[in-house]
């Protein structure tokens, strides 16, 4: 059962081949068997999962419920789940039992999905390797000495190892797409504002966006359908109507204009990864697409722009963690300032502290114009580059990451080199446009992701392009041998 897609599992449930309870027990068993070795789960919600599965079985027996009813899933531990620990990968929230649900959690629950647990992640989503988690690094199922990518590393590893059919992730600078690439799964970051951010612990509010992490594009369309939509509890939620994402999956790609930004194929890209991407692009040519070279001239500035904008926003967002109302509090504070400083000093890990301090500095008197204002102006230039590109092409393609997964500990002491692993993904967050990663091959047994970037609200088109590619390739069906 664990190798089936949502569509297949749903058909099995409806036909009575198995119940949601059996399906849930099956996946819980796989989690018990492999979860610890990969360290991808922070919380396993066995009891509640079985209750939800039995409720789904009642609905299915009555012929009610939708395509997601009774399908197991897991959330990145950044989504607030009522009554469950919601740690965000941090000691700061190790004791935090959320008093409410994120909108995304409510949506997938209403769709009848069964939550199996909460997935490991980089602390407060700050990291590209899942090594900054308070709960320890997650391991990549394709090579357990390597990182799964981050920050949604637990989600990517769990889906790749088939411990869950689908997981949620969040993407501030590549946190869905880069781990999807490293673990050989499909991940989609929607248009900014498409999915509610309510109850999703904020890192950088103008960049954060939640999305599905799945086995293939067809599953991603089903999950996005349930996640997308207006939410009055999110002040930047979009009111635009949500289209039917599954309807256009099989559309013909003849005449689709694909742009390859020359900046995505420069000296920073691993030459073996480049070859895999060239082969994937060739598949699109065979499918009838027209390929042309384009330019995103300011792309090289996207990482430095991000490392001003994201820390600035995070320094404001994370000021709420002060040891007063919830979360970690230091022992025996001498005074109020000591309470704040020690609770934060002891509760946050090194990378989170670095980013908060960079943000505080960039926003401080005398430096605001030189850093924050300048970064916002360059953000505009990067966004304009995409706008111009989409006057010429429908979809932009290239590698998701400059390399395949790297060894645990390899970049842990070198923040800048870690930051550069997001060089191809950050642009979409700065502009607010949708982008996804799909499995496109392997280099020395490690997965490579092809990135598809689209214009605002073009999720349907991206899913269509990804699905057609997955009809003629089988990279997305490969499972790491240990977990087959």
């Amino acid at each position, binding site marked *: 059962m664990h190798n089936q897609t949502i569509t297949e599992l749903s058909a099995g449930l409806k036909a009575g081949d198995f119940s949601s309870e059996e399906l849930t027990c099956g996946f819980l068993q796989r989690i018990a068997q492999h979860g610890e070795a990969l360290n991808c789960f922070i919380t396993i919600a066995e009891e509640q999962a079985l209750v939800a599965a039995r409720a789904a079985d009642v609905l299915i027996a009555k012929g009610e419920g939708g395509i997601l009813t009774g399908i197991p899933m897991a959330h990145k531990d950044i989504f607030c789940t009522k009554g469950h620990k919601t740690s965000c990968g941090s000691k700061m929230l190790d004791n935090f039992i959320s008093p409410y649900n994120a909108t995304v959690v409510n949506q997938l629950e209403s769709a009848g999905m069964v939550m199996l647990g909460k997935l490991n992640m980089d602390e407060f989503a700050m990291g590209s390797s899942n090594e900054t988690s308070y709960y320890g690094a997650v391991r990549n199922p394709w090579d357990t000495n390597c990182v799964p990518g981050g920050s949604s590393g637990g989600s990517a590893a769990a889906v790749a190892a088939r411990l869950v059919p689908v997981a949620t992730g969040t993407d501030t600078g590549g946190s869905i797409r880069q781990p999807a690439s490293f673990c050989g799964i499909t991940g989609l970051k929607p248009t900014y504002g498409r999915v509610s951010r309510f109850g999703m612990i904020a890192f950088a509010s103008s960049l954060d966006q939640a999305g599905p992490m799945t086995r293939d594009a067809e599953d991603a369309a089903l999950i996005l359908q349930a996640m997308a939509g207006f939410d009055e509890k999110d002040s930047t939620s979009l009111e635009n109507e949500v289209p039917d994402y599954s309807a256009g999956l099989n559309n013909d790609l003849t005449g689709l204009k694909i742009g390859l930004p020359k900046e995505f194929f420069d000296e920073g890209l691993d030459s073996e990864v480049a070859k895999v991407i060239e082969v994937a692009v060739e598949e699109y040519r065979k499918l009838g697409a027209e390929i042309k070279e384009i330019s995103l001239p300011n792309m090289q500035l996207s990482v430095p722009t991000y490392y001003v904008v994201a820390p600035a926003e995070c320094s404001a967002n994370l000021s709420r963690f002060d040891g007063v109302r919830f979360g970690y509090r230091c022992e025996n504070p001498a005074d*109020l300032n000591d309470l704040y400083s020690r609770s*934060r000093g002891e509760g*946050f890990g090194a990378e989170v502290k670095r980013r908060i301090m960079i943000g505080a500095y960039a926003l401080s008197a005398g430096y605001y114009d030189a850093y924050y204002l300048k970064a916002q*102006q360059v953000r505009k230039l990067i966004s304009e580059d995409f706008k111009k590109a989409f006057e010429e092409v429908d979809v932009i393609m290239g590698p998701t990451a400059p390399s395949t997964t790297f060894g645990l500990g390899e970049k842990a002491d070198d*923040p800048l080199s870690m930051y550069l692993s997001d060089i191809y993904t950050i642009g979409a967050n700065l502009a607010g446009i949708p982008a996804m990663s799909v499995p496109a091959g392997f280099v020395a047994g490690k997965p490579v992701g092809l990135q598809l970037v689209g214009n605002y609200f073009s999720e349907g088109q991206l899913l269509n392009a990804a699905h057609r590619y997955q009809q003629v390739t089988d990279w997305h069906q490969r499972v790491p041998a240990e977990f087959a």
Partner: protein
Amino acid sequence: MSLKAEDVVKIAHLARIEIKDEEIESYTSELSEILGFVERLNAADTKGVTPMAHPLDQVQRLRVDEVTEEDQRELFQSIAPETENGLYLVPQVIE
């Protein structure tokens, strides 16, 4: 941008993050390195460019000013480090 140890101490205070004396040196070099990296932005000509604070070209949506939440004080305070009589407790501020 090369920060000095005293800059890092000041930033840490602004951010209300305690850093230990033996950590100051490593934070000083790491933060300097990151700031040096972001200074690549200076290469961009941004004269007359409108700063982009947000990806959506929309004005802030406003809601009707009415009470929509119910009182959940007990639930919220059940996860607080220290409360008394419905109040959050912190060390004494006024002598």
